[in-house]
């Protein structure tokens, strides 16, 4: 196979995963959240238990008018959804489902993933600024503050597993993983999960989009397909973060028959993490802005630093 053809096939495969997995997570959220609240959720679209609800939503979004506010910064306003969405596509392309099922292999893939995920929130900030709306601006500022606060503990938590594995390659980290990491890296895993939730602006960290006080924050002025892109970015973010958590902290493809079922194990673990994220959204109330900052700086950063020290001690002792 020529390298060009292979690149195209891999890109198409990543794009297909990028467009289908978020819908799967979204549908799971619809149904799990509904049943956790004693409801049924979507029941009509597609016939069987509303399986096509998100497809129908997509069709609806396409039909809607694409409104740009008169005072908005048009260029930035129209670019923002792409800036929010594309980084997760890039991140997904380097996250492996198994050593062979991966969009692109590179040595410092974990650095790339963390870097592009940080870019994603720029899209939210651009949307907040360009909308010429006070709610949007407030939401954008909150999103920026949240990014600054939670990026640090997240990077520290990832640094811990990278240190333990002795490599910056995600495939390398997952292959170096062994079950006792579940205990050894537990504080780091906790910090990563909480920070991932905060980066995704998911409840209970959805202060930037708090719909009951700043009417969806940066997305207030968006409609139609651009709004759908922001929603897709959120669910693609859940997919990326869940798979990343599964690969870094849960061993990815480690499991029975891992030589030929490895990709399935990674997907299942990632799906379980996504369900936990949905579960937390349903169970917990929104944190206030000051509580949110306090959690990051007073708890997560020290825990992540302690984890880093613990990992360093472990690495030195075992080597």
């Amino acid at each position, binding site marked *: 196979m020529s390298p060009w053809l292979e690149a195209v096939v891999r890109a198409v495969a990543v794009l297909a995963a990028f467009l289908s997995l978020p819908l799967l997570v979204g549908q799971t959220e619809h149904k*799990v959240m509904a049943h*956790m609240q*004693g409801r049924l959720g979507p029941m009509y679209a597609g016939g069987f238990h509303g399986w096509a609800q998100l497809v129908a939503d997509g069709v609806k979004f396409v039909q809607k008018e694409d409104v740009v506010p008169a005072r908005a910064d048009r260029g930035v306003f129209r670019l923002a959804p792409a800036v929010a969405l594309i980084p997760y596509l890039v991140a997904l392309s380097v996250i492996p489902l198994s050593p062979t099922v991966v969009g692109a292999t590179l040595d410092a893939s974990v650095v790339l993933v963390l870097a592009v995920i940080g870019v994603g929130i720029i899209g939210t900030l651009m949307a907040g600024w360009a909308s010429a709306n006070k709610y949007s601006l407030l939401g954008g500022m909150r999103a920026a503050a949240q990014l600054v606060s939670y990026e640090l503990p997240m990077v520290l938590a990832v640094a811990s597993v990278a240190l333990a594995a002795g490599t910056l390659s995600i495939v390398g980290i997952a292959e170096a993983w062994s079950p006792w990491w579940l205990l050894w890296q537990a504080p780091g895993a906790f910090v990563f999960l909480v920070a991932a939730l905060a980066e995704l602006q998911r409840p209970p960290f959805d202060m930037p989009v708090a719909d009951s006080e700043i009417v969806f924050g940066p997305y207030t002025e968006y409609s139609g397909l651009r709004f759908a892109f922001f929603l897709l970015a959120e669910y693609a973010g859940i997919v990326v973060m869940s798979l990343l958590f599964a690969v870094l902290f849960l061993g990815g493809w480690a499991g029975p028959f891992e030589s030929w079922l490895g990709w399935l194990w990674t997907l299942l673990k990632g799906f379980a993490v996504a369900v936990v994220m949905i*579960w937390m959204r349903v*169970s*917990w109330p929104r944190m206030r802005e000051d509580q949110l900052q306090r*959690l990051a700086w007073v708890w997560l950063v020290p825990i992540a630093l302690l984890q880093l020290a613990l990992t360093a001690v472990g690495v030195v002792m075992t080597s």
Partner: protein
Amino acid sequence: MADGILPGLVKGMATTARSLTRRAHTAEYPDVSPALPSRSRGVIALTEENCTSCMLCARECPDWCIYIDSHKEEVPPTTPGGRARQRNVLDRFAIDFSLCMYCGICIEVCPFDALHWSPEFEYAELDIRDLLHEKDRLGAWMATVPPPVALDPGSAEPAEVAAAAKPARAAGAAAGAGAAAARPARVRPARAGTPAPATAPEVSTGTPEPPTETLAAPPVAETKRLPVVREPSEQTSEQTSEQTQVLPTTDPREPE
């Protein structure tokens, strides 16, 4: 984190997980029709033949949403030489369900059972003016009126049954006569200043002394005595000792 936050978080997740395992409460309404309780107030049905255009329902309706038009028609005499009669003919009977508040007063007041509750409730319209049901539409609802349900256990018996169970009028009159005989023959208004000494009758017949009487007679005996003025023959069996002591004193005083 302050103490109490972690248990609270765990409790929240436990609660949502528990309701995840239970059945949803959702009523899948358009697919599954709801189980309505008996006597549900859905829509009002009209039996046109029973209506006499008496207008009671229209007048009692709190928001005046019943419209009735009628005219009088002359009915020729049925026998030769008889008198021609008039009767009401119903031209229009309409209920505006955009105004109706489903109080059911019209159904209650109808003396001829022309109006009935039907449990049907799916008659929403896109135009509010279509909620004005004319008599043909009101009549069509009659097919959906269920037979009356049995009364709830422990409820009072229906008025018709109670009336049928009552004894016939003649027997009632006889009982009334007996009751009249049992009633006191003479009701005398009690005078406030009437002295009723509790002491021996021979003393009271001489010179009644109000101060001693008020002191001697307890207030309970006083209040009981005031309305109960009966023949001496029947009071002896049931009255208390105090009253038997007091009441005979009044009768000897009567000739005074």
